[in-house]
């Protein structure tokens, strides 16, 4: 149960965080703005609203994941609130897991609210609800959970600045490995070819991007949805276990 209480505290803290409130308001304005962007595009207004709306949810979600991931643990250490927690009958892995699950709850709530908001805008534009967006949004959420795990992993042994830097770096690498692989396949340099194609196999966040497909009404196949979900699950599990190991014997000065 300790994990639940730590998680609940993370959620409670996020609810009172002004930075997240401001970022959320900005994202809401951006989704609304997509409606006007759609108006000026030729016969594409619904697609523009869907595409920009989902991209906004993704960017905002990643921002919240990085922000919470690098700050949640660090603030406990910096303000020494963790001293009273560690003195309780709680294992260190429970602190990490509680923190992560609290972040998951926050991220889920954030994406849920933004999705409801996007559907409200779409209902106004399209006069119907397009449930095809949901698989794409679910994969976006899985990607955001992965980013949160990366941030928690780095923050288990590093400063917020470095954790944020590395997390964003990992995220950007994950987003370009698909293109890198395309270059690699056409490259004459065997080493680069090997490196680029295998990097994409190991870590490809573009696999979580179905936004373009659903915005244009293309069919989503089962493998396109379930394979990335399974990958995300094991990826998160692996990173959290590494975080447990690193945090287990860390001096909390």
């Amino acid at each position, binding site marked *: *149960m*300790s994990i639940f*209480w*730590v998680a*609940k*505290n993370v959620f*409670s*803290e996020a609810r*009172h965080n002004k930075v997240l409130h401001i970022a959320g308001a900005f994202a809401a304005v951006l989704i609304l703005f997509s409606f006007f962007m759609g108006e000026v595009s030729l016969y594409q207004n619904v697609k523009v609203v869907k595409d920009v709306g989902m991209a906004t949810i993704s960017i905002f979600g990643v921002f919240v994941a990085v922000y919470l991931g690098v700050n949640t643990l660090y603030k406990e250490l910096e*303000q*020494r*609130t*963790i*001293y*009273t*927690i*560690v*003195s*309780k*009958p*709680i*294992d260190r892995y429970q602190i990490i897991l509680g923190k992560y699950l609290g972040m998951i709850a926050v991220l889920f709530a954030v994406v849920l609210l933004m999705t409801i908001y996007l559907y409200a805008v779409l209902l106004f534009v399209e006069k119907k609800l397009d449930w095809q967006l949901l698989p794409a949004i679910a994969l976006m959420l899985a990607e955001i959970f992965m980013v949160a795990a990366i941030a928690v992993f780095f923050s288990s042994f590093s400063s917020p600045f470095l954790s944020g830097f590395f997390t964003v770096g990992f995220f950007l690498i994950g987003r370009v490995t698909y293109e890198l692989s395309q270059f690699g396949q056409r490259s004459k340099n065997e080493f680069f070819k090997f490196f680029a194609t295998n990097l994409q196999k190991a870590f490809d966040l573009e696999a979580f991007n179905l936004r373009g497909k659903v915005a244009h009404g293309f069919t989503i196949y089962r493998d396109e949805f379930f394979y990335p979900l399974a990958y995300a699950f094991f990826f998160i599990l692996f990173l959290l276990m590494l975080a447990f190991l690193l945090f287990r*014997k860390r*001096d*909390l*000065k």
Partner: protein
Amino acid sequence: MSFHVEAGEIFGFLGPNGSGKSTTIKILLEIIFPSSGSAKLLEKPLGDRGVKRQIGFLPENPYFYDYLTAEQFLRFHGHLQQMSGRQLSKRIPEVLDVVGMRGTAKYRLRSFSKGMLQRVGLAQAILHDPKLVILDEPMTGLDPIGRKEVRDIMIDLRQQGKTVFFSTHILSDVESICDRVAILNKGNLLSCGRLDELVSVESKYVDLVWDRSPQQWEKWLQEFHAEYISQGDGLYCKLIPAAEEAAPQFEDRLQKMIASGLSQGGRLHSVSRKSETLEDLFVRQVGHLESRV
């Protein structure tokens, strides 16, 4: 360093800033890990979860989640101590009352003064009725009344059979409530034991105040190796034991000096003996600032 704390006592952990008091406490609670050595809490190795259920801890200069109310904060910590919601509903008003914070349950911690936060922190430490309460500088930030209240709480805990282990450098608090103390400096234990064992009961010096001085005052002072102190209207002199002088010899010298003074026409106003205080012991053991840096 090596020391042990008896069950049911108030144990003062003394030392100047940077002497290792907080570090020792952090090691005991596994906030940090020792490079070598070992320790036990309640006869069990460090990290035992069963033991942690019986420990309450208040860190130095505590900062708590300021977005929570006092009740939410205590609930959070109570749940981490595996207390049920029903237990907490009963216990939270009780502990807030004990620390003098009755009626503040619904206020957010961000509206509290430093002293109030310290009290709520103390409430958190005793919430689950622990056997051992570890307090790191619990008097920090408290006004004299607050300090007295914390001292009273510690005495109450001892009366309930709890063990209180607290670090401080406020010596008057230690003198008034501690059963035993340990003094440390630069990570080394300098002494450990009961206060009356550590502090010398022998006179450190004797102050004599005369209403009318004996004849040949200066010669008389020289004869008994007494020191004249120019202070106010009275005639003060101080008699200090010599380095090799035993207590009975010093007492003999004092008696002879008084008799001689009276026989020379002096009128004695008062004699006051000054024994060693904890502060004297502390300064003697820890030394001057230069030697601590």
